[in-house]
């Protein structure tokens, strides 16, 4: 039979672990394929992960060493979460305005998996803190909650990653149409504007941004095909897509063009969506980009 201390430990740790998952759900809302059901699925899985983390310490203390092996099951379960997300996003590819691309999907799926570990680690830490403290129960709970919050903060910062806005400037681009060729700030983009309708549409409603890498070596990241596909995906999702979407890189100066005919013609929203596109984990990055500043303010 569980005593009141163990029960408090398990409940506090489970709640904190689940909260860790809920906080991270809110943080990266744009990576969600469907809101109500997506939320439910991931909160429930987060709750299970937190429960596993919460009971690990009491199980160990009751010399139930075999019970610890269920952590292995948890890892397997989280891998399944990654696979589930990957399959889900891949199956949506054909229905989106443009492809997310395999690199972006891989990154999103990894993020989903990692965030379940957040719940596990936070719950484990909270139960550990309650266990090692020898004080009044309420004080133990308060201290463990504070520790849990700090760990959530650190883990969130650690896994945050960078976005395009951190390594590049994004400015509006000037669209020019010469015959059937489309240029943005003098960069050739496409020549599929062969009909009068297409030219008229693009002239009247097309918008474009140009991405300027802040350092020359950031071109390694920005030139990556998967990264540009991800940028284009975020742009079309933010504004909708009436017709045509292109990205093009300028080999000379490393500029990247993103242009489309959107449903919502809002250049500032386009700039924001491009800036907020995450840098993909799978993209080869320079070390200066990879350095994660845990305490950097937003």
């Amino acid at each position, binding site marked *: 039979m569980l005593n009141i201390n163990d029960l408090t430990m398990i409940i506090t740790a489970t709640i904190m672990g689940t909260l860790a998952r809920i906080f991270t759900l809110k943080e990266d809302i744009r990576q969600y394929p469907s809101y109500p059901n997506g939320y439910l699925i991931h909160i429930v899985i987060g709750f299970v992960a937190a429960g596993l983390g919460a009971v690990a310490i009491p199980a160990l203390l009751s010399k139930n060493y075999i019970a610890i092996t269920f952590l292995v099951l948890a890892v397997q379960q989280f891998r399944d979460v990654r696979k589930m997300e990957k399959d889900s996003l891949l199956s949506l590819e054909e229905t989106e305005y443009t492809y997310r691309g395999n690199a972006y999907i891989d990154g999103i799926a990894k993020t989903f998996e990692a965030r379940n570990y957040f719940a596990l680690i936070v719950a484990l830490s909270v139960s550990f803190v309650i266990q090692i403290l020898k004080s009044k129960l309420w004080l133990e709970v308060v201290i463990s909650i504070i520790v849990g919050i700090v760990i959530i903060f650190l883990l969130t910062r650690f896994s945050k990653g960078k976005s395009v806005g951190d390594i590049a400037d994004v400015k509006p681009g000037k669209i020019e149409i010469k015959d059937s060729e489309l240029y943005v700030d003098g960069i050739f983009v496409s020549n599929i504007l*062969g009909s009068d309708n297409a030219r008229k549409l693009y002239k009247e409603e097309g918008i474009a941004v140009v991405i300027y890498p802040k350092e020359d070596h950031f071109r390694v990241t920005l030139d990556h095909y998967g990264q540009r596909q991800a940028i284009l995906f975020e742009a079309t999702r933010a504004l909708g897509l009436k017709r045509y979407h292109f990205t093009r890189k300028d080999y000379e100066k490393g500029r990247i063009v993103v242009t489309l005919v959107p449903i919502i013609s809002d250049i500032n929203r386009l700039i924001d969506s491009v800036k907020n596109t995450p840098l993909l984990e799978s993209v080869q990055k320079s070390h200066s980009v990879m350095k994660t500043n845990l305490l950097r303010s937003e």
Partner: protein
Amino acid sequence: MGKEANIKPPYEILAFITINKDRVLAGNALSLYTDTKEVQKMLTVDIAKALKADIVELKTGDYMVIRV
């Protein structure tokens, strides 16, 4: 060319419409010859609309209907 060079281009040529008989060749794509520029343009637009495709105007004055 980078990675893109290894990726199969995501487009196909559906039709080629020309006003020069010498450029009508056999192939997968529909190849059409017309007498006048007006008919050529009209044909191109109609085919592109029907196939929900895009139009490329070549510098030679020929049109290609492609699907991206």
